[in-house]
């Protein structure tokens, strides 16, 4: 490790310093505004440090971490998403009389975990990153402690995450015992050999690791916690779990498994394909029967991760671009959707019932418009990023001739239209039995910061939905360093 490596490591150093500063500041002077301001400054400094780190030519820092453009891009994505969540959380926490300062610290540490994940090239960094992320999330989910359902959600998450972490570690141990290495580059040839089923121990190790990863991504059959945690957790934390937590793990998955270039006959390919199909089908079907907006978003995210796996399996040149583009679209869309839920939530309970959205278009035209754009983006309609993202995923799948997968994708995303439009209908269509007052649990106005974030993200969805070329070129450059 040289002093130059410290410059390469700068993003992580800044991200580590930021929560410490927020914590120390809170210890001396409790102020919500100060905590948020320091958090945003820390995140902005992280973004700046990314550009500084990008000037370095040597990107590998110890065998554990690689700060190639891929990692830098994803750290940037996670950082921006965290900033959006932090701003959205402000008025949510402000309305609830809790001490909110440590909340921001936890957001920052969780993001640090995510940043370690996307840069990890070694099992040790993988596990460290995952645990930093998970432990922060345990506390975040339960942060406004006064509600029993938060505790339920947090305990559920804690128990499941803890046990799947054990699976993950055990899987890593098995692979290491057999392969004698824990780096991605060292593992690839061994894994490729072991995947044929020749080496049972390696195969078992990989499957156990996939349990850990699958849990974080909430793909079927590891999805059970998602609806409960989404429903139980505070809405901004839900946004965080849906985006940063899943995005970081998916970026890692792409880095670890891409060198294997799975061919459609391989057992591992079939495992992933089965998981993808099950996620798309189950996610979309289960969402149909929900009346709770947060649960609908939870099932929709299960389905979206299924779509993402299709792109992941398309090993052609566009797969990494498709995954990243879809993730960016999914991040922006989910942040808007959860942002609206957050902004409308009353102190007593979150605005997660379908009734909270009835007639929203008449009382809050712009909020309803933003949510509508997000829902249409989730449904993959043109003029939104969701369309471009889904198009890229289908194109990547078609390029790799994964016809069965993309036909399932197409058919299940049609089912998705039904529940997305249900929310749209609730917002826009006047029901016969609806009185003028029966609108929304939401009392307070949408705060200025939240409104700005929602407007910016909605504009992002539309601008890059119409002209995605600059973003695609950026992503193409970013993923080029991926082996």
């Amino acid at each position, binding site marked *: 490790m040289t002093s130059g490596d410290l410059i390469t490591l700068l993003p992580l150093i800044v991200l580590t310093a930021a929560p410490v500063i927020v914590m120390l500041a809170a210890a001396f002077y409790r102020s919500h505004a100060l905590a948020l301001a320091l958090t945003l400054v820390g995140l902005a400094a992280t973004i700046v440090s990314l550009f500084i780190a990008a000037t370095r030519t040597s990107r590998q820092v110890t065998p554990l971490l690689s700060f190639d453009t891929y990692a830098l891009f994803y750290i940037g994505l996670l950082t921006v998403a965290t900033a959006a969540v932090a701003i959205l959380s402000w008025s949510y926490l402000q309305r609830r009389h809790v001490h909110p300062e440590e909340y921001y610290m936890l957001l920052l540490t969780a993001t640090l975990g995510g940043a370690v994940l996307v840069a990890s090239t070694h099992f040790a960094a993988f596990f460290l990153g995952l645990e930093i992320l998970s432990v922060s999330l345990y506390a975040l989910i339960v942060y406004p402690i006064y509600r029993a359902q938060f505790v339920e959600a947090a305990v559920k998450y804690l128990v499941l995450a803890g046990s799947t972490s054990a699976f993950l570690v055990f899987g890593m141990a098995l692979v290491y015992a057999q392969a004698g290495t824990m780096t991605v580059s060292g593992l690839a040839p061994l894994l490729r050999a072991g995947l044929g089923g020749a080496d049972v121990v390696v195969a078992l190790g990989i499957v156990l690791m996939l349990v850990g990863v699958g849990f974080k991504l909430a793909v079927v059959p590891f999805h059970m916690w998602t609806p409960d945690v989404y429903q139980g957790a505070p809405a901004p934390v839900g946004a965080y779990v849906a985006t940063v937590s899943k995005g970081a793990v998916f970026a890692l998955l792409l880095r670890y498994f891409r060198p294997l270039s799975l061919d459609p006959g391989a057992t591992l390919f079939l495992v992933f394909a089965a998981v993808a199909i099950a996620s798309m089908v189950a996610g979309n079907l289960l969402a149909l029967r929900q009346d709770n907006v947060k649960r609908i978003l939870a099932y929709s995210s299960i389905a979206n991760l299924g779509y993402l796996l299709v792109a992941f399996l398309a090993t052609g040149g566009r797969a990494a*671009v498709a995954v990243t583009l879809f993730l960016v679209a999914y991040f922006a869309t989910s942040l808007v959707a959860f942002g609206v839920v957050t902004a409308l939530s009353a102190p007593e309970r979150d605005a997660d019932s379908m009734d909270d959205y009835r007639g929203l278009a008449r009382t809050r035209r712009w909020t309803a418009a933003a949510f509508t754009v997000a829902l*249409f983006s989730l449904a993959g*309609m*043109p*003029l939104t990023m969701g*369309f*471009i993202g889904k*198009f890229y995923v*289908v*194109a990547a799948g*078609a*390029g790799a*001739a994964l*016809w069965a997968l*993309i*036909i399932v994708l*197409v*058919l299940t*995303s*049609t089912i998705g*239209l*039904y529940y997305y*439009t249900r929310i749209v*209908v609730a917002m*826009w*269509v006047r029901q016969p039995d609806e009185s003028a007052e029966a609108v929304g649990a939401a009392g307070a106005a949408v705060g200025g910061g939240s409104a700005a974030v929602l407007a910016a993200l909605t504009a992002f969805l539309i601008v890059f939905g119409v*002209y*995605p*070329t600059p973003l*695609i*070129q950026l992503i*193409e450059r970013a993923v080029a360093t991926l082996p």
Partner: protein
Amino acid sequence: MILLWYILIPAVAAPLAWLVSRARPQAARWVAVAGTALPLALVVWQWIAAAGALKAAFAAHGPGAAGLVQGTWLAHLQATWIAPLGISFFLAADGLTLIMLVLTFAMGLLAVLASWRGIQERVGFFHFMILWTTAALAGVFLSLDLFLFYFFFEMMLIPMYFVIALWGHERRVYAAIKFFIFTQASGLLMLIAILALYFIHGRATGVYTFDFTQLLGTQMPSGTAFLLMLGFFAAFAVKLPAFPLHTWLPDAHTEAPTAGSVILAGVLIKIGAYGMIRFMAPLFPQAVYDFRTVGMILAVIGIIYGAVMAYAQTDLKRLVAYTSVSHMGFVLLGIFAWNTLALQGVVLQIVCHALSTGALFILVGTLQDRIHTRDMAKMGGLWAVAPRMGGTAMFFALASLGLPGLGNFVAELLILVGAWQVSKWAAVLGAIGLVFATVYALWMMQRAFQGQETHALRFDDLLPRETGMYAALIAALVILGFYPQPLIATARQTVTSVQQITAGSPLSPEATSAAQLLLADDTATDGER
């Protein structure tokens, strides 16, 4: 550049209409009128200007030169859009495009005029949606990049969905969601087909592009071509709609507000026919030929089934909706016959059906605004109360049943003559549909307007604004009935060029010599005599 204005004018007018409505709701209507009338005037101007060019190009190069290559377009515009995927912003217009654009803006204008009284709630938002639909429809007919086409194809779903769901009748939410899901699902199948074509072409040539003119003639195994053709067919058959994929149509047309029904029946479902002529058959001529028997059977079933179902309705609007299924059966029949006569008939049918059915929907709408029902059991003897309305309804009912002297007759006759050359049985069975059409049209007149006046309904007859609207439509249908030549001449370039593209396949055995074309023109003019 002029092509871009066709999309931009309504697209800019849309938010403008919404904005001005906050100050004065009435102003939104005028913005919408301008947003549709302006491009309409522009297309008509381009059409007139191009009339000479069309003829000159035809005379100079013969039918063979009128292929889908750059330079033979009346106008085109190509710019890179999403370069990494080889997607370009490629707009181009030929004769058929102009006809479809005229239809789009005329129906858009009609939709705005027809909602002058009927829409009083969220006026700005309504016109925003109508103009958005118009812009997207113009985009659909102008794009020659398959991605761009799909983009616009999907884009018009959202405003149409809102128009049905927000301003529709009793079961509007159900109808809107059904419409949305049917169209989206079939559209996605087309997307898969487009992507497959993109990769097959890219692998073979190294050029990855969605440019339709470059994708033409892509070599692939016949089984693959057939599957891809089915992907396109699914999308267009749902739009058209062809039996058995028609079930969204009666719901959507019936529950939509008048403006929505006019746009749906007048333009939106014509995308199905347009797409088959422009994209499906030229891309996969052999597969379309292999599918011809099934296609013609579906067409004939559609003709007869639609007519029988129309007869069975008690809801006046639903009756009109089912007549569309029947009329679109003729369109499908003509497309699968794929000879000059039939295709010219199809183009004519597209226009005449838009005019006559659009008028009938407006008529039902005005009637419903006045007597607050569409149930024919509650009508009867309305002619005595509103003779102008009765007479107008009679005219359009007769147009719908294919009365000689009106455009619809020429269109259906051309299609049947064309189909006869391919399959006598299909033509014979299709002609039976005309008999059913007479039954439902006259039965509708009998139940709604004739007979005993039992319910003592009193309401205003047609107002001057409405009379003017209908007069224009009546005049258009009569002119097309007696002198369809300008329309046929405009469409001729397209009809010839798409046939030229498919000439190598058994789909176009006649290979369209110039002599036959002249013959076709003679027959066309004979048709209406």
